[in-house]
């Protein structure tokens, strides 16, 4: 736990009816960072968020806030606010009163309250909507009210539980930029839960990939994408070809019946590893020039590129290329040393 850590989870265990959801999860979250918890549904990301928010008490383990143990502190005493899935706006209050809700509880005086609420509405672009009932607003607008309602209390940390899940694609893209801007303006920590890998990569400073109640990898979006630590991460983040391989020696790996040069070292001799190759990193060349060669099984036009499935020695490869090949054609494939990502085998 270094000085910069604002929230620390230590060995958090949560189970629902005996079924473990978080298995001794530990995580440090740095101040003023945009951290995303990413994973498929049921991976424990929302549970983690609820533990931080105080809506769920872990069976064991501790939650620290600025090095102070807050494990048993109820939600209303935490300097943390949440933007809920589907927003949970109060339908009996108008937009202004929804945003003012937390301040009124804190008995902030009327003048300051008004300035702060209006300022916040200004920031999320909803000035003039004060008297509207939240249910009459569009999804994107409700989203902004929910953010304003949480941020107006000046929390140290804002928790966001799949806040863009209910929006359509176009609006989601817009709001992604908006959220990032709001986070930078407010200058606080955002902990963001999503199952959308693209969303995670665009917005975050740090991505925490989770699966089955365990953290799989923590890193910057670039690291996560380029250097996945295991097959799960590689598969979940973007599309990839994952193959079993043998690490012959440093800088040399064998898979698909061919010896490849790579940039990794430090594995045991003849260690069994997984290899990840991104579909866009495979070069298509004439059959005789390729390190590998295979038969094109199918070609689908995807807009920017063609997606091809190529069968090589019983393995199906996914390849993205800007040039279409004919199904049935035999092609060659080249993979550069930089494009081969070696990972430890996952224990099952």
């Amino acid at each position, binding site marked *: 736990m270094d000085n910069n850590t604002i929230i620390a989870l230590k060995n958090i265990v949560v189970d629902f009816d005996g079924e473990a959801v978080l298995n001794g999860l530990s995580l440090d979250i740095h101040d003023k960072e945009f951290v995303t918890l990413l994973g498929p549904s049921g991976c424990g990301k929302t549970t983690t968020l609820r533990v931080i928010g105080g809506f769920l008490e872990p069976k064991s383990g501790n939650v620290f806030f600025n090095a102070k143990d807050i494990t048993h502190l*109820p939600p209303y005493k935490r300097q943390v606010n949440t933007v*809920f899935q589907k927003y*949970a706006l*109060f339908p*009996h209050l108008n937009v202004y009163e929804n945003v003012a*809700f937390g301040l009124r*509880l804190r008995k902030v005086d009327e003048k300051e309250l008004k300035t702060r609420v209006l300022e916040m509405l200004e920031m999320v672009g909803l000035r003039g909507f004060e008297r509207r009932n939240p249910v009459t607003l569009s999804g994107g607008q409700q989203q902004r009210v929910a953010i304003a*309602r949480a941020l107006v209390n000046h929390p140290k940390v804002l928790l966001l539980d799949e806040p863009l899940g209910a929006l359509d694609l176009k609006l989601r893209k817009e709001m992604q930029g908006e959220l990032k801007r709001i986070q930078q303006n407010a200058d606080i920590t955002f902990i963001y839960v999503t199952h959308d890998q693209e969303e995670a990569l665009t917005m975050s400073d740090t991505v925490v990939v989770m699966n089955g109640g365990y953290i799989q990898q923590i890193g910057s979006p670039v690291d996560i994408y380029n250097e996945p630590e295991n097959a799960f991460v590689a598969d979940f983040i973007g599309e990839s070809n994952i193959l079993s391989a043998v690490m012959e020696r440093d800088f040399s790996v064998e898979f698909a019946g061919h010896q490849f040069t790579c940039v990794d070292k430090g594995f045991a001799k003849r260690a069994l590893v997984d290899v990840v190759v991104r579909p866009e990193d495979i070069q298509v060349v004439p059959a005789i020039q390729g390190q590998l060669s295979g038969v094109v099984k199918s070609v689908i036009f995807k807009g920017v590129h063609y997606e091809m499935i190529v069968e090589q020695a019983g393995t199906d490869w996914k390849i993205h290329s800007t040039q279409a090949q004919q199904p049935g054609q035999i092609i060659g494939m080249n993979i550069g040393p930089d494009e081969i990502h070696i990972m430890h085998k996952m224990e099952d």
Partner: protein
Amino acid sequence: MKKMGAFSKLYLVLIFSFMYLPIAVMAVFSFNQSKSRTLFTGFTLGWYQSLFHNDMILSALGLSLVIALVSSVIATVLGTMASIGIYSMRRTVRGVIMNVSYMPVINPEIITGVSMMLLFVVVKNSIHLQIFGIPTLLVAHITFNLPYVIFNVSPKLRQMDIRMWEAALDLGCTPIQAFFKVVLPELMPAILSSFLICLTYSIDDFIISYFTSGTMQTLPIAIYSMTRKKVSPEINALSTILFVVIFTIILLINAKDSRNEKKNAVRI
């Protein structure tokens, strides 16, 4: 299918005449000068006047209103509390409680009335106190009103987004504050409508009151004793008044509803 055939129209007219002719006849004869129920001999408001000077009717009306108000308030509070408590119980327990709560609704009213009367008689005989009257009426009315509150409030509670409650805690409410500031306002429409349902059922009830009132007379009981006397055109006047009052209330509610709908339509 939006246009109706002549046959369908005729059918509608016939059924609605069947439903409304008796009421119309009563209304017409409430203005009849003579006591005759077949010959209209001339216009008068006399029956209305004598109705308003009929002490039996007036005191019965007063009793009905008091019983209805008090029992509805208690049933609404008790029922709302029960709904919230039941909400957090396990499924099986909840099922059992709901089924028992359903009893007064599915049982014939006469059974509910008779069974409560038995209980009251046994209690009265063991404590040697004259409990029949307002106490027994109140208990009976609260009992048959409670299920309606629970069946109105419980679904609303289940529909409520539990995150709303969490959001309130998140923004700094203690659990009790969160209940009064968020949960209760959210349930309010259901609570109010159950209160209104209780009021109407309570004012309208004859059978259960008949068995539990002792010698007290609520309005329906007074009406019953008037119908026993055969000829009393005051009943016609009373029916007409009640009909007009109910008609107005329903009309107002409907007007409000359709206005709200229009407003919403404009918003969207």
